[in-house]
């Protein structure tokens, strides 16, 4: 029998790794979107949620380290799959077309490497803009001092490049999830004659919900005029 590390390096092991990290990242973006939507809560809701996270101390570091490992492993395996595929067919077809039917060939499935790399680059910019971005301090109702991330978010998305750039990336996230959700289940061996079609449909709906949920915020802030927007309460 292969050692555990050899097993992880096998084709099957790589798919299991992609699936496990993919599910972890799916759970993460659900929490991320839920937090983002606090921006439509009362004036302090978003900053309070962000402050609560930042006050978690060592637990936050563990979560962040876990997330970083999940992102990096997911990206590493994805890129290695793309690399192997180039090695596995040195001479391509003059003509190639999908046969349809049970096939899941689509723009989403064929572009995982493209959407994935865009998301990876986006992640670096995103962390730089928000996690390490300069903010003013606000006093929360409880009397604590917190970073005014809500203010930073509103300022950022009132600039067209940021608002539309984020929107475009979130559409790509939707495509990545459109294939990724179903694929993660299949990679983790959950393929069922009856339920797989349902899992695929749920995956597509989930992908659309996530993309729309995330891109609604920058577009709403941009077109609504930030603090002028009906659903956003500023101090």
């Amino acid at each position, binding site marked *: 029998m292969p050692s555990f590390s050899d097993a992880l390096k096998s*084709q099957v092991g*790589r798919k299991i790794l992609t699936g496990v990290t993919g599910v972890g990242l799916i759970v993460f973006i659900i929490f991320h979107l839920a937090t983002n939507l606090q921006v439509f809560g009362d004036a302090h809701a978003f900053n309070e949620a962000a402050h609560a996270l930042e006050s978690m101390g060592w637990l936050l570091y563990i979560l962040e380290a876990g997330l970083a490992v999940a992102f990096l492993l997911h990206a590493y395996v994805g890129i290695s799959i793309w690399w192997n595929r180039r090695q596995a*067919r040195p*001479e391509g077809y003059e003509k190639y077309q999908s*046969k349809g039917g*049970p096939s899941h060939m689509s723009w989403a499935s064929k572009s995982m490497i493209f959407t994935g790399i865009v998301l990876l680059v986006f992640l670096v910019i995103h962390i730089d803009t928000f996690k390490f971005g300069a903010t003013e301090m606000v006093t929360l109702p409880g009397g604590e001092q917190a970073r005014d991330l809500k203010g930073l978010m509103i300022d950022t998305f009132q600039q067209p490049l940021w608002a539309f750039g984020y929107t475009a990336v979130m559409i790509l996230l939707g495509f990545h999830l459109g294939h990724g959700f179903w694929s993660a289940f*299949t*990679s983790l*061996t959950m393929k069922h004659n009856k339920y*797989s079609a349902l899992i695929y449909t749920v995956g597509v709906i989930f992908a659309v919900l996530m993309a729309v949920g995330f891109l609604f915020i920058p577009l709403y802030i941009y077109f609504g005029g930030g603090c002028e927007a009906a659903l956003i309460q500023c101090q």
Partner: protein
Amino acid sequence: MADTFTVHLKIWRQDGPDQPGKLVDYTLDKVNEHMSFLEMLDVLNEEIVAEGKEEPIEFDYDCREGICGSCNLVINGQAHGPKDMTCTCQLHMRNFSDGDTIVIEPFRAKAFPVIKDLVVDRSAFDRIIEAGGYVSVKTGSAPDANSIPIDKTVADTAFDYATCIGCGACVAACPNSSASLFTGAKLAHLNRLPQGEPERKKRTVAMVEQMDEEGFGDCSNYAECEAVCPKGISISAIAEMRRNYVKATLAGTEA
């Protein structure tokens, strides 16, 4: 006599494994709708031989009944052509129309090197099968029928996977050139039957390792393999292979 029609063919010609190849144009005007695709190529080859200017086109076949897995052409970008659950040899010219341009290429993968024209070497599949080893059955006198009870649905499912003829269309159609459907089908066939159970873990690990070694790509769950499979084998076989592989490696036992 049935009406004949004309097709324009673009066929991959390659003199040898290390020679560069290219698509060569042919026009064939004696095509009859009852011809199989391979018979159409036979007629073209007769013309080429009669003309005597070049060598006939090499392509693989054996039974021409859709059961041996020898024929292997990518026709207009689809392994085995446009018809579902059909081998190249069982594809008939009635699926094409007068004036059609048909591109014919070999199955392409590093693990399936071109020998000549449309013929590729698929012995990588044989080595995956060999890696699977043996099945513990008594090989002396014939065993009693039904001495090992097997549930009907288990036997039927095993048989569905056993219909894999190892043609390689799954590899040819996969954007990653993965052999997961072939390997998965062989494993799903043997692993679910009591006769194959004793070596289940060993077999799964050995065949997955051999598949890696042959230089096939990873599976990305495109399911294009299922769409082109002439036997319609489900990618559930791939999920089952993964399940058995995880069980085998986590258990860590030798059997």
